[in-house]
């Protein structure tokens, strides 16, 4: 059909037409992933080739100093040169560009798939800002007077995050969300140590639908972890929480909404149960997108919370970091935050190290403040109303997608029937699996043939059978949502018609199906480096 055939249609008609097309599977991308069959960099190049030349000591320097080797104590010099690639610059560039092409980053595709990750658009202006020398080429120990711009950004961003959470104090030192959650475990530990309640209060309560770090990091901090399972409606079982608390309870570390996307309407009752037992309450707000300006952790009684600046606040994910965790607390816990904190005195900004009750450090220097620069710019660009719009559209998008997905054969949504989800949903493909043999991992493999990133299934353990968890945040258009649902429908249809073709997917990926999977578990088969591979695998062939 030519474009002119639609010349008279209204914008609303056009939206409807495109959506219908996509839902019928007419506009799915027939994607072909780049297939370079690229060797490993260690197999490339020729002895003697150079990728970059480095400065050599000037003649005067050499004349004054002599040979560098003379300054290396006996036995401390490297004997054999490392077996690194020797390759010219263009050939090296080409190799890594090919690898980038074989990576389906969010900028190219649709990361609605990666639920619990809030894959939102990271504005390109931010990247330009953090790459400039005024941000990239700062030393963390520079005199404060030469970093006033950076400190002002960090301070102001901290103030915004305080109003968004209702908390009283903040650190932006953690290098990721889990790191912020770990910081919480250490801060709570210090609080009880100061009160002389350690090691008696050595139990931390979490829920199975909270992120694994809510269980793992208190363990690292020395706590015994109690995990509460959901009740029949998918909420953490309040009776189980009541049964778990005692004079040993240090606190709880939980998410709301949890990975299921269900908001726990009695969350303040859980907080009260913990508080009445003398414990502290932390809420993991890695996924805060649906509640920005709508509900605040402090208002539900929490003593602490965190945000991931690389999720809710637009910092890109960079192949899993570097990231920034914002950790916020009430006045009660503020003395224990790691050093240094950014303070403002008059018109000047300072790094405050003089905090005698601090837990010390969780991270060297200052933190990953590239993420703070981006979050600051993002918040300033949107303002209070814009943040609220982000939340509303995220929630609307999620419910719109839910409506499409629930109409697809084989898809179900466990728990809390009749309740709407906020920012994401944990679905189940158990029916599809039972009826066709095609499970969630098979569907995941097939999706990428349509240029859509494989979906996130679930953290372990799989409480929901054959799970998948999309999160269609505010970044995605209605057409994007229609397309995503159409892909799931298409794969479901295929599963019922020809299960084998789904199970053998992907069909147009950068590589064929992997084999020798025993290497994932067996010491004589795994190879974490090229040298290990050559020793264990290649030489034995």
């Amino acid at each position, binding site marked *: 059909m030519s474009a002119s055939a639609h010349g008279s249609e209204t914008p609303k008609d056009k*939206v409807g037409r495109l959506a219908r097309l996509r839902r019928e599977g007419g506009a799915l991308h027939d994607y072909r992933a780049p297939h370079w069959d690229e060797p490993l*960099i260690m197999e490339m190049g020729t002895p003697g080739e*150079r990728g970059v030349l480095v*400065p*050599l*000591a000037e003649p005067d320097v050499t004349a*004054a100093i002599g040979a560098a080797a003379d*300054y290396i*104590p006996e036995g401390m*010099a490297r004997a054999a*040169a*490392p077996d690194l690639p020797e390759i010219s610059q263009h050939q*090296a*560039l080409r190799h*890594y*560009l090919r690898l*980038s092409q074989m*990576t389906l980053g969010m900028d*190219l595709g649709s990361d609605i798939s990666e639920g619990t*990750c809030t894959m939102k658009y990271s504005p390109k202006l931010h990247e330009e*800002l953090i790459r400039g020398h005024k941000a990239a*080429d700062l030393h963390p120990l520079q005199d404060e007077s030469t970093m006033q711009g950076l400190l002002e950004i960090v301070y102001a961003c901290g103030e*915004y995050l305080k109003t968004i959470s209702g908390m009283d104090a903040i650190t932006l030192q953690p290098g990721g*969300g889990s790191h912020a959650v770990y910081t919480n475990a250490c801060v709570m530990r210090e609080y009880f140590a100061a009160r002389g309640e350690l090691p008696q209060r*050595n139990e931390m309560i979490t829920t199975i639908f909270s992120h*694994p*770090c809510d269980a*793992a*990091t*208190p363990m690292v901090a*020395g706590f015994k*972890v109690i995990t509460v399972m959901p009740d029949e409606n998918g909420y953490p079982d309040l009776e189980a929480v009541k049964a778990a608390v005692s004079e040993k309870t240090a606190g709880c570390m939980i998410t709301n909404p949890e990975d299921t996307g269900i*908001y726990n309407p009695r*969350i303040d009752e859980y907080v009260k149960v913990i508080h009445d037992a003398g414990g502290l309450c932390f809420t993991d707000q890695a996924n805060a997108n649906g509640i920005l300006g709508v*509900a605040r952790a402090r208002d539900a009684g929490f003593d602490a919370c965190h945000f991931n600046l690389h999720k809710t606040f637009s910092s*890109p994910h960079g*192949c*899993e*970091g570097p*990231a920034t965790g914002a950790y916020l607390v009430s006045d009660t816990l503020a003395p224990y935050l790691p050093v240094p904190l950014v303070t403002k005195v008059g018109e000047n900004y300072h790094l405050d190290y003089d905090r005698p009750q601090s837990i010390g450090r969780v991270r*060297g*220097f*200052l933190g990953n403040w590239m993420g703070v620069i981006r979050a600051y*710019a993002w918040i300033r660009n949107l303002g*209070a109303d*814009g943040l609220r719009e*982000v939340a509303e559209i995220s929630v*609307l998008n999620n419910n719109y997608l839910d409506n499409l997905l629930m109409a697809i054969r084989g898809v179900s949504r466990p728990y809390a029937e009749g309740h709407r989800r906020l920012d994401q949903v944990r679905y189940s493909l158990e029916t599809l699996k039972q009826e066709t043999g095609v499970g969630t991992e098979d569907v995941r*493999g097939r999706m990428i043939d349509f240029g859509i990133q494989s979906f996130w299934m679930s953290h*372990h353990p799989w409480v929901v059978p054959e799970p998948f968890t999309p999160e269609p945040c*505010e*970044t995605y258009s209605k057409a994007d949502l229609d397309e995503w649902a159409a892909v799931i429908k298409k794969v479901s249809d295929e599963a019922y018609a020809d299960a084998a073709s789904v199970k053998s997917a*992907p069909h147009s990926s950068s590589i064929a199906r992997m*084999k*020798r999977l025993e*290497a994932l*578990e067996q010491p004589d088969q*795994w190879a974490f*480096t*090229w040298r290990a591979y050559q020793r264990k695998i290649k030489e034995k062939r």
Partner: protein
Amino acid sequence: MAERPFIHPYIPNSVPATKQAMLDELGLKSVEEIYAEIPERLRFKGRLEIPAPILAERDLERHMVGLLGKNTSCEEFLNFCGAGCWQHYVPAIVDEVINRAEFVSAYCGGEYSDLGKYQARFEFNSQLGELLDLDAVANPIYDWGDVAGRSFRMASRITGRKRVLYPRTMSPMRLAEAKTLCQPEVMPTHVRLEAVDYDPATGCMDLVDLDRKLGDDVAAVYLENPGYLGFIEAGAAEIVRRAHARGALAIVGVDPIALGVLVPPGSIGADIACGDIQALGMHMHAGGGCSGFIAFRDDDPVYAQECPLELYTLLETEAGEYAVAEAIAERTSYGARDQGKDWVGTASGLWTIAAAVYMTVMGPQGFKELGETCIARAHFAAKRLAELDGVRIRLSPAFFKEFVVDFAGTGTPVAEINTKLLEKGVFGGKDLSAEFPELGQSALYCVTEYHSQADIDYLAFALKEVLA
């Protein structure tokens, strides 16, 4: 005047007609009906205290450039401060690759859709393994102090012992991170960290004190090479030997950029190596360029099994291509929650790709030449500074790129010198007077291949003026 609808370029469905169409499809009047899931008493009724939005991109850019413009960068001033975050040259090709949108915006996509990311990771691990002379390298995480603490915990789990020895010259900042990880004494799972004294003449570990503290209850002896204070640990091999003799593991902390010229941890028998990859192609980013690695022996699977970080193995496909996938994932916190080995999370993926590119273009010859230039220029700088009245160089004459300059003889405190150097456009060395009072009014200076002879001459000139 009617208010214009809020249509934002990052929010396509903020177009009122689209929003309405979606609500219509759901049979809803407004999004409020969805938010009815949150009880009234938990709803935020106030207004967020955030300034009015700066909507136009140009206006936002002006605002941000104005703020960042208040900073003075190490491109504008000459910087001689390192102390764990070092100014090395970043080849343009490194930035070109890590600024690719595919890498910047990728997250945890799978082995098939994100093959390139996985392969780059494996190539990073492989190249770093070559520099370290170790067969197993894990996916890096936050920074050196963090991986030092994790290595201590790993050694404690492997040996079942609860005490770790570290050099008193260790960076106090790194030590603080490690101490947080090893828990306060009151916790039953605490790992005790104990300092080994150093030879005041050289900074190297005092082997007599090591023997005194080394018992059968020691999980690991940790050493740094080059040490935080810049010196090359001449006794490294001997320390490893003595640790092994008592059944303890040897952990070597290392700045890998030195390994074109210095002996790698694997060659002196280290069981575990850790350190920071920041020097390998990362801009400093006010410390945000840091990223810590852990590497270890692969002749005994217990190291991999007790490693807290993600491990990636090379595989093949049915078509004979390479593939890369995560191995023994069940031991991580993602696989086992509180039963796992410490925790993992989003860490520093993009930096590992930067380091992969950096190691590739440097190659063996690049690392050798860079190491030699660092040593030559650092020693040249030390020589020039030692010519100034009252200034002397402390500790071992064998150092790599950092060295301790004692200004006690000048009668001027380091803090004052550094403030005055700012007026000359110079960031001076890190003030050590609080961390190591026994070294007097000392500062840790850092000179790398980034600094030319002229830069060093200028530093000497500026210091002479400041001390006059």
